[in-house]
């Protein structure tokens, strides 16, 4: 070798500097990995992430007022709602013009039901006015202010106009305020009427019931996981099947089983009557209430508590307990001071998992929860399929999603996503 090559950069076989050559190889490797991931990533982005983004968008979107009444919205901008006077003729003329077009495309009823979420009565006002406005001639029939007020006194209502003005922007926080029992009113953010405040209660109930289910799962899961971790491998494998079988059984099968068991004419009541604990006349009501939901969901989610607990407990050496006892600890002290602290990570993982799963549950509460045992997700489903207040459903969903993602982040910190194990 000559001296010249020793002082220059190290070269690869093809003469390029080794550093650049290695970088290129690394880049190629990265690119290849990304090429393998790209199809799936694209697939998930389109089929899953885009829908979630759409939901987030719908929770603030409020195009309907401006799209249906474009001229009115512009005319209304200059109106000061503080004067206490209904808007002037220009606004009413614009409204007449907008309504004639809206009636033709039949969008005025949709706008009516949208505004009705914020102020009852607007829906019928729009429907009623729509029928008359159809027959008006825009060129000759003015002035429209008197005509509208003559048609329905509500058109002179400042509060109603203020509502239209507030909700004329393209984006609104109205749905989110609604999900926490508040509303956007002419005087700023205010509480909803007493009989419309349901969501805070529902959120509280969802959290309370999820916590109850979580604690029941810890209470029932801990002894089982302990037993499984301390038995011989053969025996624990056999018993593990008893845990995995419910885990693998269809959710609806388990829910129907509970529906059958908990009914008033069901198996549990029959047994209780037969034993004599319960009088045939007043059988226990265990279904269509919170009790039914809690029992059925504890059963359904129990494997999710046992499996992480078991995998943590397997790593705790049994010699520690013996050592503690040989140093004079009682059984209880040895368990509480030595064993239990080491099993806490398992409890944490199981609890977060069960809690995440239970706050978003829909099927089981829907079937065994009646009216008192339902969760926030049942309300979301109701808004999407029955009341068609999609914006509110999306806002409730966004709040629930934020809560779940927060817990998920905590789970990742404690356990790590990569450590999620199945079966």
């Amino acid at each position, binding site marked *: 070798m000559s001296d010249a090559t020793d002082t220059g950069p190290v070269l690869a076989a093809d003469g390029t500097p080794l550093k650049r050559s290695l970088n290129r190889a690394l880049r190629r490797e990265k690119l290849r990995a990304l090429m393998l991931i790209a199809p799936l990533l694209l697939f998930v982005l389109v089929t899953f992430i885009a829908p979630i983004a759409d939901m987030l968008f719908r929770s603030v979107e409020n195009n309907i007022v401006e799209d249906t009444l474009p001229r009115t919205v512009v005319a209304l901008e200059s109106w000061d709602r503080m004067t206490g006077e209904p808007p002037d003729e220009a606004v009413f003329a614009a409204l007449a013009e907008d309504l004639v077009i809206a009636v033709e495309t039949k969008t005025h009823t949709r706008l009516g039901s949208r505004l009705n979420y914020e102020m009852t009565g607007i829906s019928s006002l729009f429907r009623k006015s729509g029928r008359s406005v159809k027959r008006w001639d825009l060129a000759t029939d003015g002035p429209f202010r008197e005509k509208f007020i003559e048609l329905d006194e509500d058109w002179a209502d400042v509060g109603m106009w203020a509502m239209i003005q507030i909700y004329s922007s393209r984006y609104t926080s109205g749905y989110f305020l609604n999900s926490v029992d508040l509303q956007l009113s002419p005087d700023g953010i205010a509480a909803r009427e007493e009989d419309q405040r349901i969501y805070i209660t529902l959120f509280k109930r969802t959290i309370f019931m999820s916590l109850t289910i979580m604690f029941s799962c810890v209470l029932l899961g801990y*002894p089982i996981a*302990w037993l499984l971790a301390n038995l011989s491998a053969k025996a624990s494998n056999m018993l593990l099947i008893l845990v995995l079988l419910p885990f693998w059984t269809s*959710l609806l099968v388990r829910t129907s089983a509970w529906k059958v068991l908990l009914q008033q004419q069901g198996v549990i009541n029959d047994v209780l009557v037969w034993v004599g604990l319960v009088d045939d006349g007043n059988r226990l009501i265990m279904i269509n209430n919170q009790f039914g939901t809690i029992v059925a969901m504890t059963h359904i989610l129990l494997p999710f508590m046992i499996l992480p607990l078991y995998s943590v407990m397997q790593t705790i050496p049994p010699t520690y307990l013996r050592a503690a006892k040989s140093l004079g600890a009682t059984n209880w002290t040895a368990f509480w001071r030595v064993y239990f602290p080491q099993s806490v990570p398992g409890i944490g993982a199981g609890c977060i998992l069960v809690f995440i799963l239970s706050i978003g549950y829909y099927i089981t509460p829907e079937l065994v929860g009646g009216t008192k045992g339902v969760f926030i997700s049942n309300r979301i489903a109701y808004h999407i399929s029955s009341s068609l207040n999609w914006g509110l459903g999306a806002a409730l969903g966004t709040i629930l999603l934020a809560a779940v993602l927060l817990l998920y982040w905590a789970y990742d910190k404690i356990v790590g996503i990569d450590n999620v194990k199945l079966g």
Partner: protein
Amino acid sequence: MSALPPYATTPQRVWYYSFRVICGLIFFFLIAPIVVIIPLSFNAEDFFTFTPEMLAFDPEGYSLKHYQDFFSNSDWQNALYNSVRIAPLATLLSVSFGTLAAIGLSQDHVPFRRAIMAILISPMIVPLIISAAGMYFFYSRIGLQGTYIGVVLAHAALGIPFVIITVTATLVGFDRSLTRAAANMGANPVTTFFKVQMPLILPGVISGGLFAFITSFDEVVVVLFVGSSGQKTLPWQMFTGLREQISPTILAVATILVGISILLLATVELLRRRSERLRGMSPT
């Protein structure tokens, strides 16, 4: 739990046995609801509880009429047909995309690995009702709501995390020198993949596929929103049955589904053992 030592005191003995009884009761709580529906599905009456004839083991009390109803009723048969039509295609989609991506993710240098992983796992974490709501909104925008393809795509998305998790878990123990050896002997990447890598990770791929299949086969929330009556699946039919006119046929269907889950559980368990054995063979 080690056996009771001979020097155990009476309270220790009492605790030892009562702990076993408590555990027995919890196992009973886990298993009994599933077991109890099996005999009830053979009920000769349209009741959801044991009739005196059943308790006396009188053959009169048992019949197969709910099973007959399941196999002759067009609603149930349609639902079964739809389930069988949707689940395999959804599984195929999630397994083929998922396996490729899992191989990509298990490479040494993957940029944004954590973020990508979080996105791919998210369908498992996001509550089903939220996925269902979002898919309902978005799929109606692009005209997939109420179509067969829409339901298949939705179910495939839900199954992907399971495939990713099981296949990456298998790849963790995969000996990379095997692919290098194959390449060294002149195999191109495609041959290496099918002849060397695939047979070794196959157990993981299959169990991921089974998870994806059961996810789709059992799924009801998303199909309720994304599907229309033309895509009514078995769980959907059960859901309506449970909510509206509860008929004992549901118990017959439930029993059949329990049978299927036992079969799947056995398969996954066998595959897991095989995978462990294979991994034990490869030098690390």
